[in-house]
């Protein structure tokens, strides 16, 4: 991991509430693995000091690093107004990554909202071999459908309002697909969705990786702010792990699911 002053190549609204920003960050791009994130110092953030963490959506051979984000507070609001040619200092790549399936494992990607951005580099690595289940509240929250189709993925969609695909939660699409052998599930979405998937799949033999993030501070594992419960061999059965270091990608078998 390193810091790199990165020039903004492009920054725009792509659909609904989603924005995409592309940074020229050739040194960071060299060592990115799927599922990792980058910690961005938003230039012009006035008196707020924290970096903002974003999943790395895509990287290019030319050293461009892309992030998809929503405006959810002061930091992302100012980020959305930064212009081409301005610079942000990026810290990364950070965190654990999605582990490629074993040679005979079939990949099922399950994503909610812009969780689809987190699994894109993984999908590229899988060379079209897999199925992706995309879920969102409504059609304007669905992104990257065409991009996954272009990779050759089998795309299944569910929206809570039924405007696209099946009506309901994306997890309701999964049942028929979970009976096969040698499955590997990769999931990214809002935390409640991650824990729901965790509880749903905990008693199966399926190999599951979940991307779970909690609000971060340092991003590198030094401050212990972003912890979540993982299984431990102690009396209480759990301890805290850092979602920026041991995570954000966790294997389900390591996660401590509250009763």
């Amino acid at each position: 991991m390193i810091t790199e002053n990165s020039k903004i190549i492009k920054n725009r609204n792509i659909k609904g509430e989603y924005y995409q920003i592309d940074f020229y960050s050739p040194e960071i791009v060299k060592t990115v693995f799927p599922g990792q994130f980058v910690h961005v110092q938003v230039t012009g953030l006035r008196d707020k000091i924290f970096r903002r963490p974003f999943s790395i959506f895509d990287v290019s051979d030319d050293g461009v690093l892309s992030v998809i984000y929503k405006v959810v507070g002061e930091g992302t609001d100012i980020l959305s107004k930064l212009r081409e040619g301005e610079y942000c200092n990026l810290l990364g790549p950070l965190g654990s990554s999605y582990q490629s399936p074993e040679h005979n494992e079939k990949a099922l990607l399950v994503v909610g909202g812009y969780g689809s951005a987190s699994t894109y580099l993984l999908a590229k690595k899988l060379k079209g071999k897999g199925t992706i289940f995309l879920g969102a509240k409504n059609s304007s929250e669905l992104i990257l459908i065409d991009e996954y189709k272009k990779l050759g993925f089998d795309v299944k969609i569910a929206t809570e309002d039924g405007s696209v695909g099946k009506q309901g939660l994306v997890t309701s699409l999964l049942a028929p697909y979970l009976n096969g052998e040698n499955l590997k599930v990769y999931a990214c979405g809002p935390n409640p969705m991650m824990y729901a998937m965790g509880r749903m799949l905990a008693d199966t033999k399926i190999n599951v990786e979940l991307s779970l993030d909690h609000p971060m501070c340092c991003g590198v594992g030094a401050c212990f702010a972003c912890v979540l419960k993982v299984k431990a061999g102690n009396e209480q059965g759990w301890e805290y792990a850092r979602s920026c270091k041991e995570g954000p990608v966790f294997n389900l078998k390591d996660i401590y699911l509250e009763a």
Partner: protein
Amino acid sequence: MADLTTKLGKLILKNPVMTASGTYGYGKEYSEFYPLNSLGAIMVKGISPEPVYGNPMPRVCETASGMLNAIGLQNPGVEKFISNEEYMPFLRKNSATVIVNIWGKSIDDYRYVAERLDDVEGVHALEINISCPNIKEGGIAFGTDLKVAAKVISEVRKATSLPLITKLSPNVTKIADFAKVVVDEGSDMISLINTLTGMAIDIETRRPKLANVTGGLSGAAIKPVAIKMVYDVANAVDVPIIGMGGIFNADDAIEFFLAGADAIAVGTANFINPTAPIDIISGINKYLDDNQFNHINDIIGKVII
């Protein structure tokens, strides 16, 4: 090039820049950015007798020019700290100058940890954190009661011959009184300030932003309080002083030296700029050169009143 060699009693450091306890883990993370032995010293995250898991989330929140934290002193406990690869052995392998911050829920806890660390190779000093709650006395911080603070230092003093630094809490009316009392009980040095108690409320949920309700404020917002307290303590006692609180760059550090600090520690700044301590060392060098000072000592306590 000025001479940054820093003499803190028996402790001789290559420069006066340290990293503050709680902001640097046990050195592993930031060692990827620069060699740990470039620093004057590393003050590791507070060690208690047993492993402590820490507080529920949310543990931190951003505030204007700073942050609140209620991490809850999560640490592996003294036994794992001494023997697990990723802690003391790692620090020794990287030739770090290690100052171990210690804490406890009772005075016995402090004494126990000090005894265990007394003869551990590579431990250069202990920093006694008295800003944690005294569980036995209803949770009031050890460091906000003169008699209790005195007792902690006196017990730790009996338990070890290592250089002792007492880290003072700023949440008191007269910090100079605490400085005097801990020095009288055998503290070789003083470090200050720890965090200021604070709180933040989310107006959408109408709940505190921290699960612990209250937390410690750090960052640039507290620097003026820290400098004033360093100045007060420097005028009250003769022992070496390690100043900290909102140091983000060399200019900030110089203020602390002028106020009377012999050394400084960088904390919250690490989260924003992973190379902050290294940038500060070179900035201090530049200030001394630009102002024709040959030695860091030439500016310590030299604020012109």
